[in-house]
């Protein structure tokens, strides 16, 4: 006698069902789950044990000042604080005014400064610096509130951002004979130099890259060939060789009376290098503009320059913003290569610190710290670029 009773339905909701579906759906999957759990446990326990009991974190805390600004003179450090305050304030305002896309960046900046405040609190650099970072972290939020209240118009903020770049640069470098005495770039170092190299590199390379991209798509063969040759030449060689060229060979190519210091030479090399990559990004944006728009502009009697400035570039540049954020991230990581030509950016100063007798052998501590700083910066930017992508609707428009 058979009864057609169905077995009770398996749970399809709840934690057990979730486990069954996502971790133990098949034999292979279960095996993988066990394997990965073991791996994760081993890694977490290993790292945790090292970080909490074995690691000599005093190497980092003792040298925090070097990591942050290198050998920048202590009595001039207020100039960097002022630059940082400008950055924090503008980021906060932008987060309020421009909305969600820049907000994650501002929050990341604030969090990063809060972390630094915590780090300095346990180090020996002094309470004033802790206060400095706390003020900066707070200023981001103050700015955000002010921005949300619409206390600052959009246009003024954009202009302020553009102004902030030369202002910051002048603040940091200074001028001989003024209340701001010159601080030679050989004294710039640590995170300060890393950020300056990347920021100046991307800002200067952007106009050059746009010109190269337009040149590569130009109807004039001479422009096209020159631009293409430049782009392919630069993209075909490693950045180290270009930095080496800028460092060793540039003095050969310039007349004897012109001397450019090492940091500026490296900045020049980075700019020439990233211009080729910016150009390829922008070219992608240019190709996305339908030919019909260009033909319509020509039919209206616009010249080539006007077509580019009013029709093509505004749309193309908007479309390549996320790609350029990606480029900025890789540029930020690539600034570590200046260590090879002997500059003291974040990684270079780490190597110098490892040469101190009391820091001997603390490789892992120093490199993990440097890597963590890069991770926080790059991860925040990559998350912001994802949001930017969806906010701008690239690819869905």
């Amino acid at each position: 006698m058979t009864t057609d009773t169905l077995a009770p339905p398996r749970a399809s909701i709840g934690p057990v069902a979730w486990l069954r579906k996502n971790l133990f759906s098949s034999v292979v999957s279960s095996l993988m789950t066990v394997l990965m759990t073991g791996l994760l446990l081993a890694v977490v326990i290993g790292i945790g044990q090292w970080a909490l009991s074995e690691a000599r974190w005093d190497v980092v805390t003792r040298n925090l000042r070097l990591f942050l600004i290198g050998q920048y003179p202590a009595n001039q450090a207020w100039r960097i604080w002022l630059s940082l305050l400008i950055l924090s304030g503008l980021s906060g305002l932008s987060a309020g005014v421009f909305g969600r896309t820049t907000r994650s960046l501002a929050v990341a900046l604030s969090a990063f400064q809060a972390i630094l405040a915590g780090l300095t609190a346990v180090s020996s650099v002094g309470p004033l610096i802790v206060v400095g970072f706390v003020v900066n972290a707070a200023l981001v939020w103050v700015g955000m509130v002010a921005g949300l209240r619409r206390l600052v118009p959009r246009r003024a903020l954009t202009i302020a951002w553009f102004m902030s770049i030369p202002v910051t640069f002048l603040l940091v470098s200074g001028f001989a004979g003024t209340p701001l005495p010159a601080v030679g770039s050989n004294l710039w170092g640590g995170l300060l130099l890393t950020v300056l190299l990347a920021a100046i590199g991307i800002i200067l390379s952007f106009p050059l890259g746009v010109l190269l991209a337009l040149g590569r798509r130009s109807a004039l063969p001479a422009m096209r060939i020159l631009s293409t040759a430049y782009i392919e030449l630069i993209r075909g060689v490693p950045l180290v060789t270009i930095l080496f060229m800028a460092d060793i060979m540039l003095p050969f190519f310039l007349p004897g009376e012109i001397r450019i210091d090492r940091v500026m030479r490296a900045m020049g090399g980075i700019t020439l290098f990233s211009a080729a990559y910016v150009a390829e990004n922008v070219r992608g944006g240019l190709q996305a503009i339908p030919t019909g728009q260009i033909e319509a502009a020509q039919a209206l009697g616009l010249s080539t320059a006007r077509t580019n400035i009013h029709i093509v570039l505004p749309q193309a540049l908007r479309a390549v913003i996320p790609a350029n954020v990606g480029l900025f991230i890789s540029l930020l990581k690539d600034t570590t290569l200046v260590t090879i030509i002997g500059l003291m950016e974040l990684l270079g100063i780490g190597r110098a610190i490892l040469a101190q007798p009391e820091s001997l052998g603390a490789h892992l501590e120093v490199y993990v710290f440097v890597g963590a700083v890069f991770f926080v910066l790059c991860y925040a930017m990559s998350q912001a670029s994802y949001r930017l992508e969806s906010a701008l609707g690239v690819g869905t428009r």
Partner: protein
Amino acid sequence: MTQAGHPEHQHVAPPPWRDVRVLRVAVQMVVLLAVAIGIAYLINNLTTAMGERGLSFGYGFLDRRAGFEIGESPIPYSATDTYGQAFIVGLLNTLFVSAVGIVLATVLGVLVGVARLSPNWLLSKVAAGYVEVIRNTPLLVQLFVIYFAVLLQLPAVRDAIALPGSIFLNQRGLFVPGPQLGTTFGTWLVILGAGLAIAIAARAVAARREAAGRPSHRFGLLGALAFIGFAVGGWILVGEPPLTFDLPVPGRFNFSGGLALSTSFTALLAGLVIYTAAFIAEVVRGGIQAVRRGQLEAARALGLSEGDTLRLVVFPQALRVIVPPLTSQYLNLAKNSSLAIAVGYPDLFKVGTTMANQTGQPVPVIVLVMGTYLAISLATSLLMNLYNRRVQVLER
């Protein structure tokens, strides 16, 4: 088309400074002239500067005695050889580490990329964590961690870590079984070639039958079996084994036998593979996700097995999306191999800087080095473009 007949449509030639045809030529002339003047200025400065140092631009030094040792070399090299030979050694080292790196990074990258799409939640999260951590930290920092904090801290030769398969790891580097070619290797290779020819012919027959709409499975399988049969049969027939593995044996002070990979090489290779694999994983994931869901559903509706769906539907379409970005990852790996200088592996760039220092001729040397990297990049993209053309869809 002259319209001289109609006075009201009389063609008035624009003045030359408003004539587009004239302007186009003029603008190009000006740009070319400016570039030429700029280059001439730089070269003039260069020759002046080199003249002051008593140098002249040339490659005569390539025939001179190098006088420096190179730590590792695939070809015999000693300090008495020429700069030209030293340069070749650097080039071969770069090519070697790049080629091995590309193969290993592809394998690891595909595994991680597929793992990210796994229905297993934990596996996909671990893969995602790997990708995020590696992609958001600089390669140079990773290289320093691997070299200074891991490999150089390994136990001494005496206490080498033994891994399965006669692989040993210690401060001096990685010791793996080294392939040794026997005297019968050539004969075996010929037999192997014959097997391969048969397998290819069988595939061609299978493809033709498939095109004609007849069943074809057997031929492909028979070809593969023939190849395996030839390989195994040949191995037994030639008598003495054509290929043996020389196992590393721990000695008093160092390992003897086997293939010794230096710490520098191991660090560089590991760094390049781990870093590039994270990027390749993202490329692979993007490619697989680009295959439309409908394609999968259609394959299931047709009753294709899970393996056939992947092999016949997903991969051929994903490959089309994957190959172009994969090419640029390969190029990045080859270019990043120049970071060898940071861990002391004598690659093209490191040998180049040594040559530049010793000869006092940095300009010709760096031009040569950059030209060589450019040639490697162009050759790689050419090869990958040929492959890309094969996997792209043939549109009518």
